[in-house]
C-alpha cells in the first residue's frame, strides 16, 4: 500500500535484514565457473547438433549463436552471482540470501534444523571448499551454502548443531 512512495532503490531491492552479511570464499567462483562452462559447452553442442540434424541451414546457426551469447552472459555474471551468496547468523536464526535477477532470502530458526550436512565435490575438494546444507521438516526450505572453506564449514556445522540442540522443540 505504498503506491505514493518514491521509487527508491531501497524499496526495489529486497533487503529486509540489514546487518553484517558474510560472503562465501572467492575461490568458489572457480568452481561455479567450471560448472557453468561445462553446462554452456554442452548446451551449445546440443543446440548445434540438433540444428545440423534438422538441416535448418544458415538461420539455424542464429539459434546456436543466441544460445552461446546467453551462456557467455551467464558465465560473465558468475563472479557477481557468487558474491551475492551471503549468510548471516543472528541470535536465533540463520538468514541466507542468493540470486541477482531472482533473489531469494530465507530465514531458518535454529530450533527447526533437523540436520546439517556437509558435501564436497571433486573440484571443491581440490580447492579446499565444502558445501553446507540445512535440512528442516519442510522440503521447500532448500538452504545450501556453497563455497565455504572446509574448516569454516565444519565449525559452522558444529555451532549450528549445538545451537539447534539448545533451542529444540517439537516439529
Amino acid at each position: 500500500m505504498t503506491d505514493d512512495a518514491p521509487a527508491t532503490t531501497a524499496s526495489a531491492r529486497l533487503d529486509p535484514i540489514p546487518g553484517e552479511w558474510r560472503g562465501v570464499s572467492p575461490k568458489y567462483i572457480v568452481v561455479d565457473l567450471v560448472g557453468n562452462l561445462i553446462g554452456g559447452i554442452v548446451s551449445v553442442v546440443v543446440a548445434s547438433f540438433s540444428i545440423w540434424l534438422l538441416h535448418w541451414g544458415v538461420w539455424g546457426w542464429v539459434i546456436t549463436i543466441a544460445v552461446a551469447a546467453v551462456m557467455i552472459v551467464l558465465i560473465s555474471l558468475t563472479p557477481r552471482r557468487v558474491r551475492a551468496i551471503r549468510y548471516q547468523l543472528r541470535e536465533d536464526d540463520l538468514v541466507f540470501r542468493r540470486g541477482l535477477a531472482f533473489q531469494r532470502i530465507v530465514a531458518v530458526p535454529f530450533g527447526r534444523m533437523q540436520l546439517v550436512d556437509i558435501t564436497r565435490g571433486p573440484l571443491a575438494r581440490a580447492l579446499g571448499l565444502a558445501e553446507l546444507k540445512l535440512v528442516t521438516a519442510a522440503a521447500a526450505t532448500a538452504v545450501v551454502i556453497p563455497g565455504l572453506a572446509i574448516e569454516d564449514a565444519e565449525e559452522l556445522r558444529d555451532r549450528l548443531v549445538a545451537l539447534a540442540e539448545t533451542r529444540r522443540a517439537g516439529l
Partner: protein
Amino acid sequence: MSKVDLADGGWHRLHPATPFLKGGIALIAVVGVIIANLRERIFEWLFPQVAVCPPGEGWCEADPFTRLLDEYLVPVLLAALGIVLVFIALFWVSWRMHTLRVTDEVVEIRQGVIFRSHRKARLDRIQGINIQRSLLARIFGAAKLEISGAGAEANMQLAYLSGANADALRAELLRRASGLRAREAAEAVERAEAEAAAVVAAGEEGETAEAARATLADIARQRLAEFSAPELDPNLAPPESVVTMSLGRLVGSTLLNVGTWLFALAIVGIVLAMVLGDAGPFVLFGLIPMLFGFGSFVVGRVVKSLRYSIAATADGVRVGFGLLSTSNETIPPGRIHAVEISQDILWRPFDWWTVRVNLASRSASSSSQAQLTTTILPVGSRDEVFKVLELVLPSLMNDDTRALVEAGLLPARPEDGFTTSPRRGAVLRWFSWRRNGFLLHPDAVVLRRGAVWRSLAVVPTARTQSVAVSQGPLERALRLAKVRFHTVQGPVTPSLGALDALDASALFRDTASASVAAIAADRTHRWGSA
C-alpha cells in the same frame, strides 16, 4: 480376545484373528474360485439323481480333475490338507512373533520370522493415532491402530487389536505422550510417601512400622493403577461431534464442483460429436468406463463423508470418517502445521467451505487415506468452519480473531486489518489484487488469497519451518515481492505473491522473529505437562 491392558510394560500379541483378517479377502476369493469351478460337481453330489456328467460321456472322463479324484483321491486330499496345515502354521508363527510393548517413553513393535524387525518410537513424537475398522474387521470386533510419526514411512501399524483394546490403548498412549501421566504418577507417589512417613512417625518401632510401610506401598501401587484404569476416565466417553453432515449438502457439494461440470461438458461434447459426425453409437461405449469412474468417485465420497464427525478430546481433535469401513484419527495439539479454508466458486451461493490441513505424518496406506486425514472438513457452512477452527487452532480462535477470520472469508473491505497488494499488483493478480493480503497475529500468519477461488490460509508461527522472501525481474520492476512460509508437506502451500516489496520485507522480518519466539514458547510436544 478379552480386554487386557496392552500398556502394562510387557510384550503383548495382537488379536488372534489377525492372520484371517489380513488374508481374509484373499481367503474368501480362493474359496469363491473353488466353489465357482466345482459348482456342477457340488450340484451332482447334492442331487445324485440329476447327473450332470453321466459316466458314458467322453468329455467328463477326459477331465483331469475327474481322473485325479478317481485315481489319487487320498494323496490329493492329504496334499491339500498338508498345504493348509503349513499355511496355518506359518500364519500362527508370524502371529506369535508379532508383539508390541508400550512403556512410559516408547512404543515398540517386533515382527517377522526370517527377517526380524524391531521398531521403537518415542511417544512425544506421535503426530496422530488412527483407528481403522474395515467391514470384515468390524464383524470380528477388531480394529487396526496406526500410530503416525513425522515422515514418509514413520507409521507403526498394529493390525489387528480387539476394538475395546484399541480404544483403550489409544487413550493410554495419548495420555502418556502428553506427559500428564508422569506428573500424576509422581504426585501420587509423593502423596503416598508422605502418608507413609506420617504413619511411620506416629507408629511404634519394629514390626508395626514395617507392616505399615508394606500396606502403604500397596496403596501407592493402587494409586498408580488407578491412572492406568481407563474405565475411570471420563474422557473416554465418546465425545459429541460439533458438525453433523447432511446427505443433501454432501451430494450437492460433490455435484457442484468445477470438475463435475467439466466432466458433464465432456459428455455433452462427445454426444454432440456423435450426433453431428457419423461416428455411430459405438462412441457411447467409450463413455461407460468414464461413467463408472465418476460414479464410484461420487459414491465413495458420499459414503466416506456421510458419517463424518469431529470432536474435541482432552488429547486433541478427533476426526471420524466412513460408513461401512470406519476411520477415526486423533490429532494431538500442535500437530497441525497449516490450515486452509477454501471455497469452490460454485459453492459460493450456499456459503459452503472446505477445510484442509498440513500434517507431518503421511499415511502409509494409500493416497486416498492421506486425503481423508488432511481434509478435516469436507464441506461445511461458515459456522461449522468456525467450530472446526476452534478445535484445530484452539489457542488462536477467540472472539477477537473470529472477526479477523470472518473478514478473511469475505471480499476485501478497507479497515479489515489485512495488508493487501498495491494497485500495481494487478499486473500479477488480475482479479484478486484487492483481496490478496496478509494479517500478522502474534501466534499465526493469516493469508487471504483468490477472488474467484477464495481461500484463507492460517499458519501457526510455532509450526513454520522457515520463511522466504523472493523477487524476480518482473517483480523487481513493479517493486513487488513474494513471501513463502515453509511448512511440512501437505495440501496447503502458504505463500503470498504480488506484495509491495516493503510490506513483504516487513512480513518476512516480523514472521522470522515471531516464529523464533513462538518456537521458544512452544510446549505442545508434551501438551499435558504445561
